[in-house]
């Protein structure tokens, strides 16, 4: 087993199969306005992972008992298309998609300002036509653009990335092959969402193995990536508006 010293630590993971540097994101492609019937929409592609988001609202919220008389609420639904993954995923929600919907809602909530829209809902539908890991972070990135595109008042932008640890090596934007890595300490998957102005963390999940000291570096790497992602999100929105004018 060949190892390499990264930050003075021996690790079995010495290079990435797609040739990327450890701190390099996959190729990003963003399209805005892809769902004309929605109030706002966007797709975010990272490598082979594609996420589509469509936003409707603010609109009246049914059922009434869910309404908040003080401000509008954000409701997120994340769904993977059955053919998005190699082993067909049965259509419809499952526990995983319900959990992901919830954490994405929590990630986006601090970005929007719905104080002026009591008793309404802003519905965000995230759909994954093709999955190669990092679907929830791609979904957040698409949804954030779609929300802005819909004209929902926003305090700041949300940008997300999945940082990973392959044996002892920290990498960014984990792909499916890396997610399945088993050598040494195996793969650790850490989806993180960072808000553009406050630089606070609105999504943080982890599964795998990591030392508490390594987390600081993880967050540093996430901040660099989300800065880069934010620039691309902002540019895509500006270009979309320019086109309209």
């Amino acid at each position, binding site marked *: 087993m060949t190892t390499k010293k990264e930050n003075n630590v021996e690790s079995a993971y010495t290079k990435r199969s797609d040739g990327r540097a450890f701190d390099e994101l996959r190729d990003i492609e963003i399209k805005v306005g892809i769902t004309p019937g929605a109030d706002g929409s966007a797709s975010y592609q990272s490598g082979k992972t594609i996420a589509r988001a469509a936003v409707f609202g603010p609109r009246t919220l049914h059922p009434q008992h869910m309404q908040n008389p003080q401000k509008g609420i954000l409701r997120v639904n994340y769904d993977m298309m059955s053919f998005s993954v190699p*082993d067909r995923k049965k259509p419809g929600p499952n*526990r*995983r998609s*319900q*959990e992901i919907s*919830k*954490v994405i809602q*929590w990630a986006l*909530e*601090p970005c929007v300002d719905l104080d002026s829209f009591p008793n309404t809902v802003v519905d965000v539908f995230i759909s994954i036509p093709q999955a190669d890991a990092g679907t929830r972070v791609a979904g957040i990135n698409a949804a954030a653009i779609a929300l802005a595109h819909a004209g929902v008042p926003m305090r700041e932008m949300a940008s997300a990335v999945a940082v990973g640890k392959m044996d002892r090596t920290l990498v960014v934007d984990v792909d499916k092959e890396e997610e399945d890595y088993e050598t040494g300490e*195996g793969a*650790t998957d*850490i989806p993180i969402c960072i*808000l553009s102005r*406050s*630089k*606070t*963390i*609105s*999504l*943080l*999940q*982890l*599964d*795998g*193995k*990591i*030392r*508490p000291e390594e*987390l600081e570096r993880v*967050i540093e790497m996430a901040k660099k990536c989300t800065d880069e992602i934010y620039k691309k999100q902002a540019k895509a929105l500006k270009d979309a508006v320019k086109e309209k004018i």
Partner: protein
Amino acid sequence: METPLIHKRRIFEYLKQGKRFDGRAFDEYRKIEIKTGISANAEGSASVKFGDTEVYAGVKMSVVTPYSDGPEEGTLTVSMELGPMASKDYEMGAPTIEAIEMGRIIDRGIRESKFIQFDKLCIKAGEKVWSVFVDIYAVNDAGNMMDAAALAALVALANAKIPVYNEKEGKAEHEHTKDSLPLNKEMMAFNMTLYKIDGAIIADPTKEEESLGEYRLSVAMAPNKGEPLITSMQKGREEPITSEEMTRILNMLNNLFKELYPKILKELW
């Protein structure tokens, strides 16, 4: 049931002075009580109490065909039930997102740590493996059901015994062998959830404190022979975490782990 505004205000005031209603420190857990073998028909079982919060966990095992992506590995399914007996806030019916999320966080803490050696649960490669079900039931929710439930699941797994395998019929008997589950004790991860309320970060909240949490961060840590490892993390609720809070949180978790883990281990192995 919404915590009355007057209670909320009081809790805020107390926290600003570094106090909690029940007199605990911010990083102090309530009395932890662990009982094992509370259900004779289960392969393994436990009840855990954190103060008045009580939860039961039971392990059941059966023989199944393995998944195609793990032909020589046993399977694990974890479920969490938050039923109306445990709290006025819970209703009959399909699991709510709260129960789903809780179950999944507990599942990840167990699964990702490789606490269970799944490859040792193979009976016949590609044909028969052991499936492990851990079902957790909230009995009384007085706050921090998350951590109590996670601990109950671990304890139930720790004292579970593998059923007798009837080779002729290819299924499990209702009798137990003397064999424990193949477990990696050094990777048994203790789940700690911290809540941020105003400027305070507290551990093991009561129901009222829980309702005030602006965000919560659940972190599972395993001893790993003296080099503690985090095996799962989940941030919940709407408020984002600042860098400064992250540092405070990690310090608190390291200290909590050093203090609590040995106490729990004493009750177990």
